[in-house]
Structures are given as structure tokens and as C-alpha cells.
């Protein structure tokens, strides 16, 4: 089974801190995605990557950056965390071939205080 692992289930950070959310997948998928999920707002795409060192902005990239130095790892960076970035963060991956399904990680619940 494809596995997508997010490094933390729960995270509490202070306003202004630099925050790293890590995501690792073990099935050699080319495409990786970061979403945030808030009540009533559904899944919103922050950034995605089609290959190593490639990144594309999603619908809400402001306040975030990403890094993909290796194929299996896609990191989301909050440069200076703010309280409005308190959310559930979900990582997903999918192969580049065809239009198949996504495999999601278990999510990271980030609270910024």
C-alpha cells in the first residue's frame, strides 16, 4: 500500500515562529500536494509539485512556501506563523500517469497561539 506520512499529528506553535510541516511518500509518486482544511471552507490547495525542485502555487499560497529537494519529500513552510494559519494541513500524492486517486497523509492539526 502507498503510504503518505506526515511528521506530526498535532503541533502547537507561537505567532512569528517558522514552522516546517513534513510529508513523505514511499511509492515514487511524482505529484505531491499540500491542502489546508477549515470548517465550512472545504479543502483548499496551498501548493503542489509535479517533480523534484518544481513547485506551483495553488489557490491560497500567501504566507506559505514549499520545498521539494527529493522526490519522496514535500515540505510546507510557514515563514512566520500567524493565528489565521491555525488549521488542519493535509498532504497528498498521486502518480503522474493517468488521472487516478490521491493518497493522503493522516493530517497535521496546527494551532498557532
Amino acid at each position: 500500500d502507498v503510504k503518505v506520512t506526515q511528521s506530526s499529528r498535532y503541533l502547537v506553535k507561537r505567532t512569528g515562529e517558522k514552522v516546517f510541516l513534513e510529508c513523505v511518500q514511499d511509492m515514487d509518486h511524482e505529484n505531491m500536494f499540500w491542502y489546508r482544511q477549515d470548517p465550512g471552507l472545504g479543502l483548499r490547495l496551498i501548493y503542489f509539485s509535479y517533480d523534484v525542485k518544481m513547485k506551483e502555487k495553488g489557490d491560497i499560497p500567501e504566507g506559505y512556501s514549499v520545498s521539494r529537494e527529493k522526490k519522496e519529500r514535500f515540505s510546507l513552510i510557514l515563514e512566520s506563523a500567524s493565528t489565521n494559519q491555525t488549521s488542519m494541513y493535509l498532504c497528498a500524492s498521486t502518480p503522474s500517469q493517468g488521472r487516478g486517486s490521491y493518497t493522503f497523509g493522516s493530517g497535521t492539526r496546527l494551532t498557532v497561539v
Partner: protein
Amino acid sequence: SQQGEEDPQALSIQEGENATMNCSYKTSINNLQWYRQNSGRGLVHLILIRSNEREKHSGRLRVTLDTSKKSSSLLITASRAADTASYFCATWGSNYQLIWGAGTKLIIKP
């Protein structure tokens, strides 16, 4: 951006009853997918139905697709407490990403 719209937004039924959720979408599709999300967890892929298919089964799940109405339904038969979750439909957009609906929250009462 969201293409799919699930209906209803929330559904509460007794254990053992069938649950039906609907999804409408706006543009032509290659396939349509359904996912489940248990509270506080990631999404799990349930079933994919291609645009040339009208019905698909997987265990207690039955998905139908009507491309003329741009709609799909997910039926869960003989519901169980473990089916309590949010259910999302998703379709592939023009920029090779899944576009998500807002989800249906299903509660199974014991």
C-alpha cells in the same frame, strides 16, 4: 476552487439504514471519485467511476454517474457506526488536479 457540490451537507440516519449522498459537478469529466474522511484524519479513497461507466459497486458502496445531469450518487447500504465520517466527491480539473466538493457529513446513530 470547487467543482463538486455534495448534497445534503449533513445526514443523520439509524444504524442499518441506507445512506445516499449526491454530488453535482460543472464541467465534463474523465472520472469522478469518492473519498471518506474520519474526524480529524486524512481522506481515504473509496471508489472511482469513469465517465463511460454508469454504476459501480464496492462492498456496501454503490456509485452511480449520470453525465447528462453532471451528477453522481454514493449509496452506503446497511450502514454501521464506523461509516460515520465526511464524504467528498472529486473530479479532475483542466490543470491536472482533483477539484473537491464541500463534503457530506454522515452520522450513523446506534
